[in-house]
């Protein structure tokens, strides 16, 4: 079935709400979602399962935690990634630590959905990509789908997972469209090799995956055979797939939508720099968002965000090094 990324989200929600009566969906304006990814769900499943909430993010996330501890499967749509901060205590002190500090007495089938809105002139408070913050908070799974199939399959996997999962959708991908196999199950923790290559590995996170794929023709033109890997999930991180590739190519560029400092890209780099040092033929290149809050003016944001041009330059640059 051909679907956009946004529709894929809706279809995954629909399917899980259908499959299991214990699934409930909380969110502000969830009954009338502007982006269409909850279209009609309230009519199908009713207001008891598709629940408009007050503007009380901490209470809502906590409610979803408590309900999950008591047998429901809960989904909270917090819409914009920056709103995670409003509920941060419930996420970092409660959701992330419940399994561990109560030593597995409870299941916590909780999914928190947010979108990242960079490159949309949404300015500083609506454009963050804070997945690294949650990677530094053990106890949370984190997925970052970058295409409709992953958006669909990873959301379903997130919902049925008995651990808290933060599902970062990338709003810049919302209208990409492709065939989605609704029977394809993607386990959380499996990276995907988007295209095989032998010269350099390009590890991509979230929206950077599409950017990297878009510049494939240019790389081929330059006679660079790139192996592009989409991590798809950050916790657990499928480091083996990445390592396998880097062992083969000996070169790697990592592209992340997050701010550079303590990014997922930095984390992956640090693992490779310790474990695969002798396989590397060149420095590990990173393209990430500069350490600057997000400006409103588009030209300013283009300066600091990861772009096709920047990834291209970095790949070419890393190719030029010779050990």
């Amino acid at each position: 079935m051909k679907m956009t990324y946004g529709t894929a989200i809706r279809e995954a929600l629909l399917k899980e709400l259908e499959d299991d009566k214990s699934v409930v969906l909380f969110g502000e304006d969830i009954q009338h979602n502007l982006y269409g990814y909850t279209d009609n769900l309230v009519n199908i499943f009713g207001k008891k399962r598709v629940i408009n909430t007050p503007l009380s993010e901490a209470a809502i996330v906590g409610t979803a935690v408590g309900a999950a501890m008591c047998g429901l499967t809960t989904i909270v749509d917090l819409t914009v990634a920056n709103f995670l901060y409003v509920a941060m205590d419930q996420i970092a002190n409660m959701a992330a630590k419940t399994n561990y500090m109560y030593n597995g007495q409870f299941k916590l089938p909780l999914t928190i959905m947010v979108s990242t809105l960079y490159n949309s002139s949404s300015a500083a408070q609506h454009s963050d990509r804070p997945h690294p913050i949650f990677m530094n908070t053990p106890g949370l799974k984190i997925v970052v789908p970058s295409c409709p199939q992953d958006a669909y399959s990873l959301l379903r996997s997130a919902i049925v997972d008995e651990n808290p999962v933060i599902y970062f959708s990338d709003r810049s991908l919302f209208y990409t469209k492709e065939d989605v196999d609704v029977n394809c199950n993607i386990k959380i923790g499996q990276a995907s090799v988007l295209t095989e290559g032998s010269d350099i590995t390009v590890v991509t996170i979230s929206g950077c995956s599409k950017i990297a794929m878009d510049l494939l023709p240019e790389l081929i033109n330059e006679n660079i055979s790139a192996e592009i890997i989409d991590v798809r999930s950050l916790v657990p991180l499928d480091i083996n797939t990445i390592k396998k590739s880097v062992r083969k190519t000996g070169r790697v560029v990592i592209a992340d939508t997050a701010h550079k400092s303590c990014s997922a890209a930095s984390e992956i780099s640090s693992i490779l720099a310790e474990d695969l040092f002798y396989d590397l033929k060149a420095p590990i290149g990173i393209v990430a968002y500069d350490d600057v809050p997000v400006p409103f003016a588009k030209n300013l944001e283009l300066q600091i965000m990861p772009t096709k041009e920047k990834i291209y330059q970095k790949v070419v640059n890393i190719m030029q090094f010779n050990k």
Partner: protein
Amino acid sequence: MNKNISRIESVIKDTLKINPERADETQKFIDMENSEKISLLRKMIRIRRFEEKVTNYKLDGKILGPVHTCVGQEAVNVGVCSALSDHDYIVGNHRSHGYMIAKGAKINLLMAEIFGKSTGTNGGKGGSMHVSDISIGSLGASGIVGSGLPVACGAAFASQYKNDGKITCVFFGDGASNEGTFHECMNLASIWKLPIIFLLENNGVAVTTLLKGVSASLDLYHRAQSYGISSKQIDGQNVEEVYYTVKSAIASIKEGKGAVLIEAKTCRFHEHQEGHAYLRMSDVGYRDKQEVNYWIANKDPIKLFSNKLIAEDIIATSEIEHIYAEENHNIENAIAYADISSFPSNEDAYSNVFIK
């Protein structure tokens, strides 16, 4: 008037049911000059025209990013900010163009900011949701619902500490009143007797979520009571009532009686944001269109006040037309200014992350 309309009327009357404590504030300050009244009208017209232009430019794709206008709510903006003095502080939220204009912002700079230009109030870094101008007492605008209240408490704290006589007014919506910060800040303002006005614009809706689904009561002013903060519910469509209420709140604060919460009942005439996607939301049925149309027809703050001033012989229709013409002209100038202004230079992306 058909039956349907009269049902709506009763709903609205109910919505506007004002709390018993609400004195007839208009009596207390009978000393507003006619020129001041006309100035209130002019400011409302300026805001309306500004917002209409912004609405169009957003639809045309000339303005990027989220844009929230205050069409229908101008009496709150103008009544409040006219009652404040120049040096008083305001803290805005996502819907802040109106306050800025009412407080005296240069509309050229404001429009330039909304266009993302280097000449904007924030040099193009903030945009519509974060317009800010310390020279008119604006402490910025935060797009995170409920997050302005703590900052406003801080401004009020500073004024109290320095004894500079300033009042801080923070604007927020009915939606924001369900955030935890509302509670924490009411309590703080109470125990520290902060010189602050909590200005709750109750338009009964947050994006598509009606207040009646997320609050046990459609009235919110009484949430102040358990903190020992005095509160009033007023008709937010009546600019004089807003003005006088704020004047009396200021007086009460200056007497040392502490913070005040004012709940202004109002109506958002447009959708939550501007732009095509949001325009479509008007058809999904989250709120009663006829009710909104009724407000637009009968509770437009500009129409109401124009009519009143004409009836009281304070202004002539022709003079009002003249104001419209002038303000149209000003807004056109602002658009032109924003248009010809340049975008920020690329290296500006890296400035002011930290202050040197």
